[in-house]
């Protein structure tokens, strides 16, 4: 590929990693990284962990200091929003900044918290946890409050619950589904973490939906079924929505995320999309395309597209997804995607150290490990080996 001008929209893990990788690879074209946030690019995982615990500041979580961008010839355009992509001219139009021409455009626009579709869920009453400002705001609100209500028993909500419980707060978690983290993990893992939260004093309410919120003085009154509850802080973590509007306006294919091919290119070959905003095909072919929200996915997508821009021969993206979360001092590491499993095997080495292997028939879908990093790494390798074996014997055989 002969791109000399690359523009990257979005300075999260995906966008930052594209730029850093291109320079590490020795690519010497013109490189610009744009973000509507004025803050020097930073990483998000610590926001719901060490930042929320008050153990790290935002300054600790910048990917690199400003001088790194100067030294590596990465033009930073911060605090300006891209308002349109002119595909014919190959240029992006920005709010309050001259337009920027590109040979290749990388959309790493990420996602935004899904709003809670409940009356009264306005910014004065509820907090999200997605940006640095959210993290700092929430840390202060939790410190000042007593009862913390979390709406949504997924990773973000439960990490926040864990931190609030550790700070000695009275914590209630509402989860609409029948088990915690149900979209992402197997039933045994949901049960284990449910017990862990309950044991730490968190009031976990499953199959429970908040129907209204009302601000009363400095507190928020909630209704969930017959229950009424008053909270000092309400945290909403009910998933995210991909930032795919820009791509849609430009006429690029999208469907709950920007659609990309196996090379991570959109329906315009001069534009790729990576990280949380991209919906990409699964190597097995038969399963529907997916969108993943994780550091690993963002970083691996970024390295893949950087190699392509730097002139390496195009290859299909094929990496085993992995994720992690930390709650009440337990580390959960997940390799592969376990949704749709029909059988689990549990390997326990000692109490609080175990792995759940999830299968569809005889095929290993993934492995979820609690405080067992060796199992996790072994499973990642095993899943990767199974993929490359599958790729050699096309069409894929399902046992």
């Amino acid at each position, binding site marked *: 590929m002969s791109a000399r001008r690359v523009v990257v929209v979005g300075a999260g893990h995906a966008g930052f*990693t594209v730029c850093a990788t291109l320079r590490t690879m020795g690519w010497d074209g013109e490189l610009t990284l744009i973000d509507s946030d004025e803050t020097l690019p930073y990483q998000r995982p610590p926001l719901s962990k060490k930042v929320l615990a008050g153990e790290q500041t935002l300054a600790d979580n*910048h990917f690199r200091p400003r001088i790194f961008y100067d030294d590596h010839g990465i033009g930073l355009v911060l605090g300006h929003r891209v308002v349109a992509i002119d595909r014919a001219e190959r240029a992006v139009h920005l709010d309050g900044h001259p337009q920027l021409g590109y040979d290749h455009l990388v959309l790493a626009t990420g996602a935004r918290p899904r709003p809670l579709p409940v009356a009264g869920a306005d910014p004065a009453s509820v907090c999200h946890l997605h940006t640095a400002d959210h993290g700092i705001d929430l840390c202060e609100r939790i410190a000042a409050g007593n009862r913390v209500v979390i709406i949504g028993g997924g990773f973000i909500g439960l990490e926040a619950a864990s931190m609030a419980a550790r700070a000695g707060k009275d914590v209630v978690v509402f989860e609409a589904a029948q088990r915690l983290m149900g979209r992402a993990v197997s039933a045994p893992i949901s049960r284990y973490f449910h017990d862990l939260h309950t044991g730490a004093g968190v009031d976990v309410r499953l199959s429970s939906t908040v129907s209204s919120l009302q601000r009363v003085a400095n507190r928020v009154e909630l209704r969930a079924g017959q229950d009424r509850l008053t909270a000092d802080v309400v945290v909403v973590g009910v998933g995210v929505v991909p930032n795919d509007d820009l791509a849609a306006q430009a006429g690029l294919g999208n469907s709950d995320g920007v659609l990309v091919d196996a090379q991570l290119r959109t329906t315009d070959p001069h534009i790729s999309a990576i990280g949380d905003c991209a919906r990409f095909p699964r190597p097995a072919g038969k399963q529907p395309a997916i969108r993943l929200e994780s550091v690993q996915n963002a970083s691996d997508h970024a390295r893949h597209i950087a190699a392509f821009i730097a002139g390496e021969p195009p290859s299909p993206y094929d990496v085993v997804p992995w994720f992690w979360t930390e709650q009440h001092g337990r580390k959960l590491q997940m390799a592969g995607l376990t949704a749709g499993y029909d059988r689990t095997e549990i390997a326990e080495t000692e109490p609080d150290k175990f792995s759940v292997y999830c299968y569809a028939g005889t095929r290993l879908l993934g492995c979820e490990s609690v405080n067992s990093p060796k199992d996790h790494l072994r499973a990642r390798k095993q899943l990767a080996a199974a993929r490359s074996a599958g790729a050699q014997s096309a069409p894929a055989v399902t046992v």
Partner: protein
Amino acid sequence: MPKVTYVQPDGARETFDIATGKSLMLGAQSHGVDGILGECGGQAMCATCHVYVEAKDLDILPPMSDEEDAMLEDTASERKPTSRLSCQLEAGDELDGIVVYLPDEQSL
């Protein structure tokens, strides 16, 4: 403040004051040292902040957790007896003057 020296694979050395309690990974990043990625944010989850320490320093370093030990099996550059994850090493008086060597590669 404790001093930490980072040595690139080509021998280039840089020494910085790193605040007590801050990890050598964050210290490297905040000074823009190339070659330490720290992709997981310092949680011993990714093995992209791999460094080699000097053998004489092994005894004064904090013991290695099971997690760090497991992740070091997954580094991009060869694991040696002196391999550590720099996110698990905190700057402090005991480590004042420590020298760490960066590997050729961090990401797989």
